[in-house]
């Protein structure tokens, strides 16, 4: 096959087929079969993606419209795919990590009844399909189709165990918050349409149409797009759904809520960097939001005791870093961090999954401890993940995070401040990750006896992906070694056709200093955690600041008080008062008035001839008056 790009449409279609097979045949397929189908299709599209990647690397690219989606004189909109360096990279991440997680799931979900098992895989496939649509889409609408599709899948998968109400609550929350973002996205799209009547990337980003936009247009559109991103990628103010989303099966959290979907926002902004770079204001906003999110989430993560919640908040925090990178114009770094983060965060989620699996569904780390001796592979791989995310030199996290920090430092004016905060956040990250690690894997076991008796290392189907991801988390960084370390940032060069890497370059000497500084501090943080938690016995009831963190700054409560409750109250008011009493009351009131009039008017007819004649005479008077004098 000479030009693999001809067959690029297979990449999304294969998972779709898998979805259909698993979905329709869910009653007849055996677990094994549906597992194989589910993972197989993803593997297939992974292979194709690799080939595509190779092709693209050697300068190929595809921009193809398959059929007219909507085609009217004021809007031509085809069902078009665009495969270039950026999307091909994401294709790799999605299909690759996706495949591993499918495999992992076959074991993790093994206790499910067959039909639910099939349902689960059909959902996963559907997700992969939508995600691929999102990144391959050649215009904003196709991207939006994927965008909402992944939202739907995450809704379905979070609510996968739909019998428990909190799961479905979480699912609804996730969907609605995403919708809020989506509205922003949509409005941006409408804005673009209204301005240039097309949403095709090449058209929109072409200099000609960029010229058509006024400054306000640019700022407005980019801000709205960013609102969309905050929804999907869990940034302030729309991040609270992500921690709750942990209600879903752990592999789902790994795939959707760590590796792929949540990075859609980054992809979207990176994709439309041509627009964003034009709006100084938006960039600043993104920087601030990203930084704030990173700090806030990290601070919360310190005090969480649910193993998945900790990871969730760390995800939010890491996403914050990525947005920080975007905000500072450091797109490459952002994408780079997406890549590495996908590796080590997926790794850690899967690891936590294996732990939970072993603990029989237990998620509270206060009831764990000393798991190292029971499940070596998990423990080791998890440790690697922690090291990676903390940014220990040599591991993938180091390179990407360091590039972000450096980029931030380089920002003119307030760069130093940003850097300081970001660095502090990095330290927090190291601290809470290792808090988690030590509490979970070291010390002595604090759970019940049958749990302890039940402890075991997970099956190969789960450990192998762990190992693979661990390896990737280590080596993944070497595609982006900065010049300072004698590398030639392969990633940056690869992406250069689409993404200009960070504008402001630092002196190598400065970079060395920054690296050293961060490394030292991180190590210190880790040691601190080691001392504090190496044999953890459970801590007393949190007080003051600690409690504030434990309760996540009461953000959920505030939202409830400020948005949810008033809205419900308003609706109730509208329903009870305005609707029933007001409008309908008026309508019925007319009827009642007529009835009343009827009852009164008939009293005039009192049966007295005298009165009748009198009224006639009076009527006559009136007529005479009108006729003769009016």
């Amino acid at each position, binding site marked *: 096959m000479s030009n693999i790009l001809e067959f690029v449409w297979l990449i999304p279609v294969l998972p779709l087929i898998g979805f259909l097979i698993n979905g329709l045949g869910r009653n007849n397929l055996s677990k094994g079969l549906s597992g194989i189908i589910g993972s197989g299709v993803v593997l297939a599209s992974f292979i194709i993606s690799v080939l595509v990647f190779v092709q693209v690397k050697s300068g190929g690219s595809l921009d193809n419209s398959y*059929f*007219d*989606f*909507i*085609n*009217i*004189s*004021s*809007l031509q909109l085809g069902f078009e795919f665009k495969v270039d360096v950026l999307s091909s990279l994401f294709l790799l991440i999605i299909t690759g990590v996706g495949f591993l997680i499918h495999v992992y799931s076959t074991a993790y979900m093994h206790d499910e009844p067959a039909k639910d098992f099939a349902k689960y895989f059909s959902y996963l496939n559907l997700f992969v399909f939508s995600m691929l649509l999102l990144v391959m889409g050649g215009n904003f*609408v196709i991207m*939006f*189709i994927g965008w*909402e*599709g992944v939202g*739907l899948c995450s*809704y379905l998968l979070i*609510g996968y165990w*739909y*019998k428990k*109400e909190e799961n*479905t*609550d979480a*699912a*609804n929350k996730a*969907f*609605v918050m995403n*919708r*809020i973002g*989506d*509205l922003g996205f*949509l*409005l941006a*799209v*409408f*804005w673009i*349409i*209204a301005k240039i009547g097309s949403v095709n990337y090449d058209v929109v980003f072409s200099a000609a149409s960029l010229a058509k936009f006024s400054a306000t247009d640019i700022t407005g559109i980019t801000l709205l797009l960013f609102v969309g991103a905050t929804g999907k990628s869990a940034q302030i103010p729309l991040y609270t759904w992500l921690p709750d989303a942990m209600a879903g099966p752990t592999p789902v959290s790994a795939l959707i809520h760590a590796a792929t979907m949540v990075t859609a926002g980054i992809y979207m902004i990176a994709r439309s960097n041509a627009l964003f770079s034009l709006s100084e204001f938006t960039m600043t906003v993104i920087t601030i939001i990203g930084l704030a999110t990173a700090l806030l989430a990290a601070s919360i993560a310190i005090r969480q005791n649910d193993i998945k919640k900790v990871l969730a908040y760390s995800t939010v925090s890491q996403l914050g870093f990525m947005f920080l990178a975007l905000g500072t114009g450091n797109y490459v770094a952002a994408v780079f961090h997406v890549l590495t983060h996908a590796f080590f965060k997926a790794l850690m989620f899967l690891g936590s999954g294996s732990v939970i699996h072993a603990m029989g569904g237990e998620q509270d780390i206060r009831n764990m401890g000393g798991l190292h001796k029971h499940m070596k592979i998990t423990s080791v791989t998890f440790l690697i993940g922690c090291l990676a995310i903390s940014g220990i030199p040599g591991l993938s996290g180091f390179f990407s995070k360091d590039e972000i920090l450096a980029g931030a430092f380089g920002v003119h004016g307030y760069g130093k401040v940003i850097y300081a905060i970001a660095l502090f956040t990095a330290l927090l990250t190291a601290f809470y990750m290792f808090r988690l690690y030590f509490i979970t894997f070291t010390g002595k076991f604090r759970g019940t006896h049958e749990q302890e008796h039940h402890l075991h290392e997970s099956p190969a189907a789960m450990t192998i992906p762990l190992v693979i991801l661990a390896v990737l988390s280590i080596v993944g960084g070497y595609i982006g070694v900065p010049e300072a370390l004698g590398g030639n940032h392969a990633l940056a060069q690869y992406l250069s056709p689409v993404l200009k890497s960070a504008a402001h370059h630092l002196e190598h000497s400065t970079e060395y200093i920054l690296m050293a500084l961060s490394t030292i501090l991180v190590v210190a943080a880790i040691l601190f955690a080691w001392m504090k938690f190496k044999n953890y016995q459970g801590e007393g009831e949190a007080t003051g600041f600690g409690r504030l963190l434990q309760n996540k700054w009461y953000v959920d409560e505030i939202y409830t008080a400020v948005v949810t409750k008033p*809205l*419900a109250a*308003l*609706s*109730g008011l*509208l*329903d009870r008062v*305005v*609707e029933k009493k007001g*409008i*309908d009351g008026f*309508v*019925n009131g007319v*009827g009642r008035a007529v009835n009343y009039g009827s009852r009164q008017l008939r009293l005039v007819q009192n049966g007295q001839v005298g009165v009748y004649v009198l009224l006639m005479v009076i009527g006559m008077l009136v007529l005479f008056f009108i006729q003769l004098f009016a």
Partner: protein
Amino acid sequence: MGSYITFPELLIWLPLLAGISCFFMKKGEAAKTMAILASCIVLAVSVGSFFYTDAAQYASYNTVNYYWLKHIGSSFFLGLDETGRLLTFLTALSFPIIFISTQKNNYKNPGAFYGLMLLTMAGLMGVFVAIDALVFYFFWELALIPVYFLCSRWGGEQRIQTTFKFFVYTFAGSLLMLVGIMYVYMHTPQRMFGDGSVSDHSFALQSFMGALLQPGEQQWLFWLFFIAFAIKMPVFPFHTWQPGTYDQAPTAVTMVLSGVMVKMGLFGVIRWLIPILPAATSMFANLVIILCIIGIIYASCIAMVQDNLKKLVAYSSIAHIGLMCASLFALNELSVQGAVIQLFSHGINIIGMWIVIDLLERQTGVKHISQLGGVAQKAPVLTIFLVIIALANIALPLTNAFVGEFLMFSGLFKANAWYAVAAGLSIILAAVYTLRMIQKVFYGETNAVTACVKDISFAEKASLGVIVVFIFLLGVMPQHIIEFTKEAVTALIALKK
């Protein structure tokens, strides 16, 4: 065919005759079969009509013009244009689905029931094909009367009062429209009939469009027409008849009301209001749009706190209709195109919703969200269908509603960004109440009420299946329906003054 009998006539007479014959059927089964059969034949006819769309070539197939009240310039003038064809198809498609999906409900005196249903069908068809104002008004009322009897005979507890309110409300509205029609008529130019006879005025749509009206006259005429249509749709604040009626009416009728009958109002706007009174339309457009948008948000909010499933759907329908009405008045290509598509999509989707609700109510006997739960365990297939339809209802991409709403919103945005922003809130609110409904009814643990629920039978599977097929067909490849309605849309916006 052609010169002998035309599509519009077939579409009207077939259900009419079938309906009348149903009245004389003693056996319920016979009537039911008759109804299903007749509606399917009509569907076939309507499908057939799609092969003769070319106006120039097949005029004799699509338009018919009998002399009727010649000396007052009215003739039995019917014709199929793009919009009309689409809506007749919707009607023709809905009724078989409705009959089949609700065939398990057994009504007392079924002959009358199915007869009236078919009469309603005939009336609706007439409304969609009439090109003569008087004929239009005739069918407009004709569609109403059978529904009145259907609702107050076979409805719920407070059926009589509720239906009566609905009737008087609508009747008053249509009478106002009648006054409007008369007034316009008095200003129409002379009309020459084929056989040379002349009447000083005429009811034909063309003459109405040619009527000489001062701007001042147009302004109050506009309201005479608009109120009639607004009540039918219904648009806030003329909507209060609707939730009660949907709640009380037998579900089969509710499907007709919400799926097809509300389209009469929108169709009226497309076919009559805008063409006859373009100046007034553009003058009041913003006012109407604002009214609609208030209605959209208002209805969505109320839907969020509804415990009664039927009322929930009713209010969501108000919101959707409001959006369509608003985008019709935004009157740019995007919005109108979207509205036209949505005319069809909304009909399909909401009928699907009702089918599911009907199944639930029939099996459990309750229609209150708070009393249901855990249906998904008992009836997974039903749940899947419901979820798909519900998602279509909140305009998820790749479903039919997305295309319509996307176009409508972008059209509104083009008209005025803030319209789109305000109306866009409904996207979020819709998600809130729809998901809440799904969660409370289908997820969670089963309870005493829902324990007995069975999964759906073949008939319902089939009808829901058809709906779902349409949902995705129009969702993935909307271009066909767009191609089909393009000219109509461009013709309409061309009227904009």
